[in-house]
């Protein structure tokens, strides 16, 4: 065992230890691997850990004598392709798949000298809000092991909350970074669409998803976003950030106006979540902000529009899994029966459900009524945000209407599961950025504040987040993780 205490260690402090020569990258990686060996059997957040590979990568950073982030460990959602390292997307259909290329975000992490600790669990193909839809079993929330960590990036959230990685990357298609960050007491950034390359991200819904950081602090989120936000020749939808990402520090809100869509908060929000949210509004006022009412009338239709658009894109994207080029094959007498048997055996129930919804919505006779209508609603949701941002600098909402729910509680009711994303998915439909950060506890579980801004406002969101963070003084180490585990 090494002497380094990794519980609650931020990436920024890990970088400080390395640059001060207080530990080597190898010692730091070993400390995390020791922690993973003890904790991960309980949390089940990693799908793949290869200690020899991790230690070799750390030794290479030590030998190179790098600076900045060189030697800082990281965990990657198993939706991100990693060259020569198994990548499953949480699905049986990709069991044993070994990518031949790194995702752009992984390549950028490697260039920055980050050391991969492993690949994290997720809802199969990122379709879910609890990580219970992983073909490899659920991940447990480090704050309460009987509860879900959120999803789909639940493994990426749980490893950071459990002290099994200083930070991680997730992906967000309808809330999949922000909601698990909320459930696990972390910071999660959903970047503006098109600022981070999607090359090598196993595709679910291309027009909605982005990769983003999941961290203990807002400054860590900025540091990791600096690494991944960049133009790429490999993704025609990626133009990089408009402004360089700055490291934020806490300041006052004088002269800023924040909008609150009160009408959206009338139903379905747990009292504890609402109480913490109201407290944060008081903090914002004390810091000099003006709080005004904004209307997002089409947001309430976001759930319906999302559950047409995302499955429609998914049904097309997942047609590539056919037992021919990679992954599982279940043989049949002809190619058609091979396709059908392979996909029946390889996909889990939630993925089949979404492929079926998407195929139905795109089929002859229904395309205009469902798919095009949902895209019209998408236009109106974007206009709602544009109208709101004409009068306010940012919009405040809870990230999720509830705290983490018990494992199994929503598995039999897809619509109840989907409804947990009502405050996050309109943001994906609009393609704008949002920062989720801890907002105190409700009955012992993390609550979360979401700050939504116009396109390319990441620096503003990070600055606001740093100020709220300084006021909240949130203790991000779960009590259960301090003791025996």
């Amino acid at each position, binding site marked *: 065992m090494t002497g380094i205490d990794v519980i609650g260690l931020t990436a920024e402090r890990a970088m400080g230890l390395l640059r001060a020569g207080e530990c080597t990258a190898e010692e730091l990686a070993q400390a995390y691997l020791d922690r993973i060996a003890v904790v991960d059997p309980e949390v089940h957040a990693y799908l793949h850990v290869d200690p020899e590979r991790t230690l070799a990568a750390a030794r290479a950073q030590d030998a190179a004598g790098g600076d900045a982030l060189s030697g800082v460990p990281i965990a990657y959602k198993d939706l991100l392709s990693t060259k020569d390292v198994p990548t499953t997307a949480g699905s049986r259909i990709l069991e044993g798949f070994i990518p031949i290329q790194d995702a752009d975000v992984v390549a950028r992490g490697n260039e920055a000298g980050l050391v991969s600790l492993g690949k994290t669990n997720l809802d199969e193909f990122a379709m879910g809000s609890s990580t219970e839809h992983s073909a490899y079993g659920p991940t447990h929330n480090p704050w309460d092991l009987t509860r879900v960590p959120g999803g789909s990036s639940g493994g990426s959230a749980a490893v950071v909350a459990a002290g099994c990685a200083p930070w991680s990357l997730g992906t967000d298609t309808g809330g999949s970074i922000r909601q698990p960050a909320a459930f696990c007491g972390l910071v999660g950034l959903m970047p503006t669409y098109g600022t981070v390359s999607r090359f090598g991200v196993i595709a679910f819904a291309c027009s909605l998803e982005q990769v983003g950081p999941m961290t203990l602090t807002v400054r860590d989120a900025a540091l990791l976003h600096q690494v991944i936000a960049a133009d790429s020749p490999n993704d025609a939808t990626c133009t990089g950030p408009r402004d360089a990402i700055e490291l934020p520090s806490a300041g006052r809100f004088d002269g800023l106006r924040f909008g609150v869509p009160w009408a959206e908060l009338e139903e379905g929000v747990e009292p504890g979540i609402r109480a913490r949210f109201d407290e944060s509004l008081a903090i914002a006022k004390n810091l000099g902000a003006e709080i005004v009412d904004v209307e997002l009338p089409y947001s309430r239709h976001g759930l319906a529009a999302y559950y047409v658009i995302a499955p429609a894109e998914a049904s097309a994207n997942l047609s590539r899994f056919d*037992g021919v080029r990679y992954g599982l094959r279940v043989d049949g007498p002809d190619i058609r029966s*091979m396709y059908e048997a392979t996909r029946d055996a390889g996909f889990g129930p939630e993925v*089949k459900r979404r492929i079926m*919804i998407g195929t*139905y919505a795109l089929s002859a006779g229904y395309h205009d*009524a469902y798919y095009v209508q949902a895209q019209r609603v998408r236009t109106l949701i974007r206009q709602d945000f544009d109208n709101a941002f004409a009068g306010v600098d940012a919009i405040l909402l809870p990230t999720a209407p509830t705290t983490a729910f018990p494992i199994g509680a929503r598995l039999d009711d897809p*619509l109840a599961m989907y409804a947990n994303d009502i405050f996050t998915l309109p943001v994906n439909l609009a393609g704008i950025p949002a920062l989720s950060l801890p907002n105190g506890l409700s009955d012992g579980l993390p609550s979360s504040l979401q700050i939504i801004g116009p396109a390319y406002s990441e620096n503003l969101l990070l600055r606001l987040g740093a100020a709220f963070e300084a006021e909240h003084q949130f203790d991000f180490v779960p009590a259960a993780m301090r003791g025996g585990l």
Partner: protein
Amino acid sequence: MADVELTPDEVRHVATLARLGLDDAEIERLGRELTSILAHVNTIAALPIADVPPTKHSHENADSLRPDVARPGVPRAEALRNAPDPSADGFRVPPIGA
């Protein structure tokens, strides 16, 4: 659009389009689940918004084009590395016209 209730034959038709070989129990369960999800989705079907242009993509005005320069493709051995049934120079599949 009035609420739809998918019949088992309709569910089978969609499964055929999606190339999913579902058994009868899955057809029955998905019929129920799709009916309930579509009932929720139908809340937007009646909105009087026919004149609103659809948004296909939130970034539709952006283009990130690289120079049109030839570069090597994926080497054959790499492309075949993950194939369930590779031949020397391709992917072997069951009979197509059977």
